[in-house]
């Protein structure tokens, strides 16, 4: 009987907290929304299941969580990575042990008398991490988001943007949500780096939000990722009221010229030229934009169809599963259910609303100067969230005029929004890491 009671104390039933139950309910809600309402099912199902998995309590000795990423130890049990971080001046946990080991056998380092040189290879032991920890490595080190961008690039058709370049500016206007939320987060007590990571939720781009949070505020990554993906799933709920509030009925009925046909040469030259323009202006966006346009070049050049096909199907699917599941698993109640998470959710909703309003209002401003008016609803698609926000534009437009199809027009600011949010992330990263 005593043994049975002892065993019971180690089970999840005995150690399950109210927070864990709340998070498991949230996970089930995500899965339900995905299945019943079809809100971003490809994301919400892996994230929802990940949340459930990440909130099963276990003994600390079992090392099962995402935070157990493995470590290199010296004989006295001290974590070597921490020792070396100070002496080697780098924040890469994987490189640090190597730096240390080499430093330990290097005469010059020994002479310098720093802490790293004291470590001998035979003193070093490794502690393996958990499966979830290794999966989460791709998130925490910002590996998965660029791979997703590669897939997005391989499935994105920039033709609508190339046929109507003035709509590109709407993708820039919507980034006002990022920078205003950055200021809002600062006023609520977040540090500069954390505020930058929270602000990028306004870019309505999950991979970009994860990439920037991993770089600027790893502690908030779970909350930011969940907020970003939740609001992306809720685009059909959040955007229409704002769009209707800021436009008149006659504006919503404006018809736009059908897009012109774009030549193959234009579609091939564009990714290379646009990459050079973006990254020379904002080098911080190099990885995300580089992978996006690389994927697009694979699609458009016509001689790498197999690679493009793999990038836009198998690869992006695998990475989405790994990313969604491990982000979900990182939301253990003890880390996630904090006041900051609530603030992040509030700021995220504000960011989304401001970004939508920014795009719509800028479209109205452009109409003051343009002869051929644009339907201001397409401005709402400037908040990335491809292709959901473009679909919302189509839906709201059809409510006013059942024959006015805006989807193709809305795709232009939509893909421009992806570029805009990646550039904004690059700027915030380079400015706030220094």
């Amino acid at each position, binding site marked *: 009987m005593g043994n049975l009671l002892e065993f019971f104390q180690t089970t999840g039933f005995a150690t399950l907290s109210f927070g864990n139950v709340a998070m498991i309910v949230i996970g089930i809600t995500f899965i339900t929304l995905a299945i019943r309402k079809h809100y971003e099912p490809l994301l919400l199902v892996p994230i929802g299941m990940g949340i459930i998995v990440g909130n099963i309590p276990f003994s600390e000795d079992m090392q099962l969580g995402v935070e157990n990423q493995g470590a290199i130890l010296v004989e006295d049990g001290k974590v070597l990575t921490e020792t070396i971080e100070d002496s080697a001046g780098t924040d890469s946990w994987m490189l640090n042990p190597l730096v240390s080991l080499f430093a330990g056998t290097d005469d010059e380092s020994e002479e310098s008398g720093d802490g790293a040189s004291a470590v001998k290879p035979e003193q070093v032991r490794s502690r393996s991490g958990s499966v979830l920890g290794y999966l989460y490595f791709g998130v925490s080190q910002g590996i998965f988001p660029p791979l997703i961008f590669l897939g997005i690039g391989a499935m994105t058709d920039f033709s609508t*943007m*190339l046929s109507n*370049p*003035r709509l*590109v*500016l709407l*993708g*820039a*206007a919507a*980034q*006002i949500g*990022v*920078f*205003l939320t*950055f*200021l*809002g987060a*600062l*006023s*609520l*007590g977040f540090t*500069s780096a954390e*505020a930058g990571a929270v602000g990028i939720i306004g870019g309505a781009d999950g991979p970009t939000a994860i990439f920037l949070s991993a770089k600027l505020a790893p502690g908030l990554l779970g909350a930011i990722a969940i907020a970003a993906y939740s609001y992306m799933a809720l685009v059909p709920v959040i955007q229409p009221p704002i769009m209707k509030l800021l436009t008149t009925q006659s504006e919503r009925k404006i018809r736009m010229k059908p897009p012109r046909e774009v*030549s193959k*040469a*234009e579609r091939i*030259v*564009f990714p290379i*030229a*646009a990459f050079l*323009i*973006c990254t020379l*202006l*904002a080098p911080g966006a190099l990885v995300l934009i580089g992978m996006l346009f690389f994927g697009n070049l694979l699609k458009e050049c016509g001689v790498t169809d197999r690679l493009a096909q793999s990038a836009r199907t198998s690869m992006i699917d695998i990475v989405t599963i790994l990313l969604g599941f491990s982000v979900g698993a990182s939301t253990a109640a003890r880390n996630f259910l904090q006041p900051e998470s609530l603030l992040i959710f509030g700021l995220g909703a504000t960011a989304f609303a401001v970004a939508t309003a920014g795009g719509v209002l800028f479209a109205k401003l452009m109409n003051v100067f343009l002869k051929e008016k644009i339907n201001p609803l397409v401005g709402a698609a400037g908040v990335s969230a491809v292709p959901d926000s473009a679909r919302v534009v189509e839906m709201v437009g059809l409510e006013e005029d059942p024959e006015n199809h805006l989807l193709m027009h809305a795709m232009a600011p939509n893909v*421009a929004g992806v*570029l*805009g949010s990646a*550039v*904004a992330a690059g*700027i*915030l990263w380079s*400015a*706030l890491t220094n």
Partner: protein
Amino acid sequence: MNLDRIEPEHLQLAVTGMTVVFAALTLIAVFIYSLPRVLAVVDGIFPSAPDQLSSPNEEQERAAAVGFALHHHRTQSTR
């Protein structure tokens, strides 16, 4: 909410960031506007080779022949 926490350099970053995003996308828009003209000039200097893909290969020719034969057979049998 305490607006005093927002320092001048934060405002500067927000304004600069927005400006750089606009600059990047405006340059892209300008580039897209000029791209067809640039390509026309390039095409004038270096005329593109005839598109190899547009000429039907043996398999396509065979498929066309089979299609024509089927069509011919069906139209004759319905008369």
